[in-house]
């Protein structure tokens, strides 16, 4: 049990997807201007990454590995994850309109995001079991969400500041992201991560 908790903790803090593995930088910079959109995006990422981990595990271990086709994992994962997200979007729209309205516009944005593919590939590479894969996917997504929400909060405050002209906008965002990444280095070796 504590092993599972450590797995999640390591994915959230120590091996944070954005700040440590540098995956998913595109939405990290793109949707971090406002806290409300950052929260919506985080919710969608948690949803998709957990689901993607759960679906890709049986595909790899029950289909690709026995047939000796492990080298096809990337192309198959992209195909399946993209389809899955589209399908889930349709189901949500029909049956859970509230959730669709909250996550709807973010779901298509992250269908083929590198963080989503990254978590599937990392699960395979580290030979995680099914439950471990799902928890790792969940933890990694929560870590992504944490980084995104922290960053959005800082950027909202920075909007009010008065930086030198040459630092305004993206330059300042990139500097801030770097500092945030440095701060997360403090968690290194806290948990022996995967």
């Amino acid at each position: 049990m504590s092993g599972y908790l450590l797995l999640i903790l390591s994915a959230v803090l120590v091996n944070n997807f954005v700040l440590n593995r540098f995956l998913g930088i595109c939405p990290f910079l793109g949707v971090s201007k406002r806290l409300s959109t950052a929260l919506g995006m985080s919710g969608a990422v948690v949803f998709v990454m957990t689901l993607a981990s759960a679906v890709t595990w049986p595909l790899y271990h029950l289909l690709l590995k026995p047939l000796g086709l492990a080298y096809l994992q990337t192309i198959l994962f992209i195909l399946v994850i993209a389809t899955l997200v589209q399908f889930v979007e349709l189901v949500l729209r029909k049956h859970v309109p509230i959730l669709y309205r909250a996550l709807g516009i973010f779901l298509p944005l992250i269908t083929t995001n590198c963080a989503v593919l990254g978590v599937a590939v990392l699960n395979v590479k580290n030979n995680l079991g099914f439950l471990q894969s799902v928890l790792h996917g969940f933890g990694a997504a929560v870590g992504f969400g944490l980084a995104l929400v922290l960053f959005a909060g800082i950027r909202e405050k920075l909007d009010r500041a008065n930086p030198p002209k040459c630092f305004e906008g993206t330059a300042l965002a990139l500097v801030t992201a770097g500092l945030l990444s440095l701060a997360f280095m403090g968690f290194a070796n806290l948990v022996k991560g995967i």
Partner: protein
Amino acid sequence: MSPFLSAVFVIGGAGAACAALLAVAARFLHVFEDPRVEAITNLLPGANCGGCGYAGCADYARAIVEKGAPVNLCRPCAAAALAEIARLMGVEAKPVEKMVAIVRCNGDAVRSRRAALYHGLADCVAADFTGGGGKVCREGCLGYGNCARVCPVGAITFQESLLAVVNPERCIGCGLCVKACPRHLIRLVPAGHEIHLLCSNRERGLVTRKACNVGCIACQKCVKHVNGQGIHMEGHLAVVDYTTPLPESLLEICPQHCFVKRSLLKPAPQPEPTPLS
């Protein structure tokens, strides 16, 4: 089976299965959406200003069709588009009078007096809390542009002069700036009116005169001049109620020159971008 064939079958099969799943899902999970929603969304201005009280133009269009929201909530909407929306919904359109925002303060850095130099956050709310900003007048424009930041069409300029000025030709009357101003200086007024009173200071004349060269000192000359038609006193401040157009002669009557003609009111000049040396 050769590795080549198995690879082709696995990827091909997975692709076909995914395609079949999506095709079936699209057929059975199809959600009927009223075509009028899209038509109305296209007719609305698309500024997503939120002035109607909904999250954006698409949200408002959905509210019109599904919840029967009034069709004339959109102030920036052109009259022709409004008529078309009303025709689509089968209701009669009552066009709304075009409203534009105006900042009821004319005390820029030259005309108003300063008590301190404010170097804090460039934000009106922050400045208001920090001893009321730098100006002596506690009810004048702070000039840090909270209104300009929320304006969806960039109609407000505020730089240099510590005074926000609305460009009435650009303003779409969404009212976001009205809510953003911590001192409640901005008001939506009918676009047809030319003469405006630009002061919100409710202090006595003696106090106002010490703070600003163009502040209302409650002499009531303007109220007497128009016989109470269109201007009334609220404490020590004359307030225009925009029921009748005001005469241009008020510009000369007011000893403090609080009245201005809007077409003569120039937005503050934007500073030239300084080239990097």
